[in-house]
């Protein structure tokens, strides 16, 4: 399972992507779907989810609507017009970031020449 340190900063793009795909979701549904898609690797707790949703709402990225279901209010989240553009932007940015990140964890940083001397000691230390 992914640790909390790794998850920080990734939850927002994940939530945006889910809303972008599914259109309208409520909190519990989001946590379940994240768990399902990641095969249990990513656990989005409700303690982490709701503060982010409220923040997104305040920023005008998502809007809410309340529907009475099974004797209780259920609050659905969906992207606003501006939110859709923002979500696209975020998702693209995140994909790029993941690609870059991948390079770092390939053996020899994915380079064909063997040996580290080509990088120079100083630059390596900085990485």
């Amino acid at each position: 399972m992914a640790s909390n340190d790794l998850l920080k900063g990734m939850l927002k793009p994940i939530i945006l992507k889910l809303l972008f795909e599914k259109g309208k979701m409520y909190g519990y549904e989001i946590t379940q779907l994240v768990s399902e898609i990641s095969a249990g690797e990513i656990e989005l707790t409700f303690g982490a989810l709701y503060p982010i949703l409220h923040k997104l709402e305040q920023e005008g990225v998502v809007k809410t609507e309340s529907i009475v279901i099974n004797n209780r209010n259920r609050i659905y989240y969906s992207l606003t017009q501006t939110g859709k553009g923002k979500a696209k932007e975020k998702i693209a940015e995140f994909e790029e970031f993941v690609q870059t990140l991948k390079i770092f964890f390939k053996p020899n940083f994915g380079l064909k020449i063997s040996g580290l001397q080509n990088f120079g000691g100083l630059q390596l230390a900085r990485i």
Partner: protein
Amino acid sequence: MSLLKINQVKQIEADVESARIILENLSQELVDHICCEVENLMDKKNISFEEAYEEIKAQTGIKVLQKIQENTLNLIDKKYRIMKTTMKVTGNVSLALLGMGTVFKIFHWPGASVALLLGFALLSLFFFPSAVYINQREANTRKRPLLNGSALLGGITFMLGILFKVMHWPGASLLLQVGFLTMLFIFLPALLFVKLKEVESKKMKRIYVLGAIATIIFEMATMFKLFHWPGASMLMLLGSVLLIGVFLPMFTWVRFKITGVINAQFIFLVLTCMYAVIFTSLLAMNVSSDVLGGFVKEESNSVLISNYFQKKKSKQLSANATLPDSLRLVKEKSTTEISAQAASLKKLIAGIKVNLVQSIEGVDEKTALYYLAEPLLIMKKDNYDVVNHILLGENGNGAARELKKEIESFREKADQVFKNNTETSKSIGVLLNTSDYEDKNAGSIITWEEKNFRNNMLISTLAVLSGLEKNVSVVETEMIAEVSR
């Protein structure tokens, strides 16, 4: 798929409500979320609602829900975030400053006042308001302007009052009185009212009323003691007995019956109560009255010695009266002069004493004279505001300046009389000393007026003045004896 029944949803709603979630959307979401979790678990394990909710509750306790709200508020509310940081930072800093200031003060190290001043200012002007704001945001669903307003006003004025008292600034009494009265008659009743609305059982309601009355009586006793109003001891006794002997046992018993457990917070509360009672009793009742009593004794002693020398002087004068005319007339001229000057100086001192007692106790001249004869009757023995005002005034134009001038001219007269007797002259210099005082610790020079009268309590100021009267009588008698020789 299981669906929760309406009463089961209501049960979850009630539990979420007890976490006091003020963001409406959030509390609805949390209810829905917990309901979904419970339904899911019921299906998965094929268990009853009670069993499933018991399991989910372990992960969604009040503390967890409150933490979610705190995190949400932190993210979406800039003011909340700023206030919370202010509260944490200033709370810690002011506590450290106050602790350090107190230690420095005890050891007479320099910088104590600065630390205390900063600590109190931070505490009352930054920490306290932000704490009240945070408490209101987190705990209350409705705004309670009376409760929060009175807590804010009462708390700030009270803390500033203590600061002013410690720093000997004028106006301390007024601030303390406003603080006390706001706390006693607005904040505590408002708090009681809110508490009474919250609790259901009649027994608990009665106990809260009792607790509020006990606290009010106890606080009133502290206030009475602080301002030396009569009846403080009776109130203190009544308040402590009600608080410790009646309210606490009853409260503990009922709480224990309801919850079945006693938590650490509660033990802390009981201990704090005990400490409050012990400290106020010890400090307010015994120590200060002993110190003040000491000055009262000093004051009466001075008067006794003065009277003794007055008698001695009269004897000498009547002895002079039997001398032959030629000699008697010469001596009488000198003795009358000396007596007149001493009398005018003593009259000046006596006038200051009466003025002090009249202004501080708010009584007429006759009563003031009676109080001076019986100093134990004086109520505000520890007032120093008025002492500063009358004796030092603004820019040193108070009565002490004229007093110093008169003492100096009397000493000059004495020096003339004893110009051939250096030993006596030296002793007189000590008795009527008005030179500046050098504070070796601080490395500064303090004038005689400042040294004797700045922030000096009424009763010890009276002792200083009576001491002067006594010294004048001693010197006068010695001078008369010298010229009569």
